């Protein structure tokens, strides 16, 4: 796994990257909550939300190709469920498409759920690709997320890629010995891999702890710079959330 895949573009410079992590977190979280609580038939609201997301995407300078490649990773599950929705619901009249007939209510729901999940996922992708991990955690800490959770998350993130690489190395060694897992009774091999991974991770944790203590670790990470909410940050949050609220309230054609 590429170590910098998730936050590869979180260090570039742009008006969005320069924002305080709290302003970004508050704005995106608010948009997600407003978006998922929008009634299914308000298509106009979704257009406004999507516009907000796209404006931030273009202002952030995060390459579109990268943005969509991350969207593609989570898309299959959402699509899989959405495709079946028009068949599972009955009501609101039928739309016939050649030999099959679909329920209008189901189609409406499919459109709404698809848009809601895509807009929410886009918000999360934009947040993580315009904010460095440590800054975001620090911002969340300032927003009263318990310090224990943020510090442990910081450790998790730091060692995540190492352990994923280790897992993939072991899996590669297994495959090079002609393992072709096809049936469930071959799952024992995966069990041994997970066990090895666990033992190695615990021994690594002991080493890491000793190394951290010998360098003066006392349970939290010191920071070089303090984050600060400026007028610019407040303005962004207010405009962004205000835009979303207006989109939620105003219904020109319904």
């Amino acid at each position: 796994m590429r170590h910098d895949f998730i936050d590869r573009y979180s260090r570039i410079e742009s008006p969005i990257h320069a924002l305080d992590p709290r302003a970004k977190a508050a704005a995106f979280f608010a948009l997600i909550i407003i978006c998922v609580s929008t009634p299914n038939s308000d298509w106009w609201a979704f257009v406004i939300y999507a516009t907000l997301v796209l404006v931030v995407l273009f202002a952030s300078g995060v390459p579109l190709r990268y943005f969509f490649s991350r969207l593609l990773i989570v898309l299959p599950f959402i699509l899989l469920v959405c495709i079946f929705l028009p068949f599972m619901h009955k009501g609101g009249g039928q739309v016939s498409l050649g030999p099959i007939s679909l329920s209008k209510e189901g189609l409406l729901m499919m459109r709404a759920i698809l848009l809601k999940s895509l807009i929410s996922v886009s918000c999360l992708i934009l947040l993580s690709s315009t904010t460095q991990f440590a800054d975001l955690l620090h911002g969340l800490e300032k927003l009263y997320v318990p310090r224990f959770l943020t510090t442990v998350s910081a450790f998790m993130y730091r060692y995540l890629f190492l352990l994923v690489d280790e897992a993939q190395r072991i899996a590669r060694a297994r495959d090079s010995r002609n393992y072709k897992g096809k049936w469930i009774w071959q799952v024992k091999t995966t069990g041994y891999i997970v066990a090895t991974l666990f033992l190695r991770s615990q021994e690594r944790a002991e080493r890491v702890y000793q190394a951290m203590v010998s360098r003066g670790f006392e349970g939290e990470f010191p920071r070089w710079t303090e984050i600060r909410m400026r007028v610019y940050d407040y303005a962004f949050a207010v405009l962004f959330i205000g835009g979303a609220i207006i989109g939620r309230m105003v219904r020109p054609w319904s």
Partner: protein
Amino acid sequence: MHIPDGFLDPKVWGTASGVSAGFTAYALYAVKEKLNEKVIPLLGITAAFIFAAQMLNFPVAGGTSGHFLGAMLACTLLGPLQGFLVMVIVLLVQCLFFADGGLTALGANVFNMGIVGGLFSYMIFIYIKALIARISGEKRALLISAAICSWLSVVIASAVCAVELALSGTIPLSVALPAMVSVHALIGIGEAAITTVVLAVVTQARPDLVHAMKLRLPAGQEV
């Protein structure tokens, strides 16, 4: 089983978020004195381990695959509350940084995979283990009950997930429940096998790392 945003309606995700936040706050409070600077790297790296283990797909049948959940494993290895906290952190990081599982659905995901799949299954595990320990050895009781409960944890977590989707009016229960439960009954076999193999290997190599080995029922409680 990670529910994305948009699949749950406000009453479901609101309730689930409240319950999960309450459990998390309680777990943080209950293990507070144990949360010194030594435990922080340990839990962080264990969370990274669960994440890495979840990326290993295992075969189910004829080329389809499922992936490991790890909630029961985390609870048996670390103890229920710390295992639960590890699952909370795994889900939090997956949501915020990998967009895997939604933000508004985070509470529901913690409820399904941490509370139902972790804490609740672990409670059943304690009693089943005590029952089996009467007729066989301690270690065999551990492995058998872990196998039963890790299968159960995946199945009931998926059933609760289906109920949440149905309560939100997204997928009717008559479709969601059979589909989720039948798929996860199969995946659960893999989960059970992996959990058991891991516990067997770890109790052999480093018995000091297995919390459930030290487990006894509280005094006065009989099964």
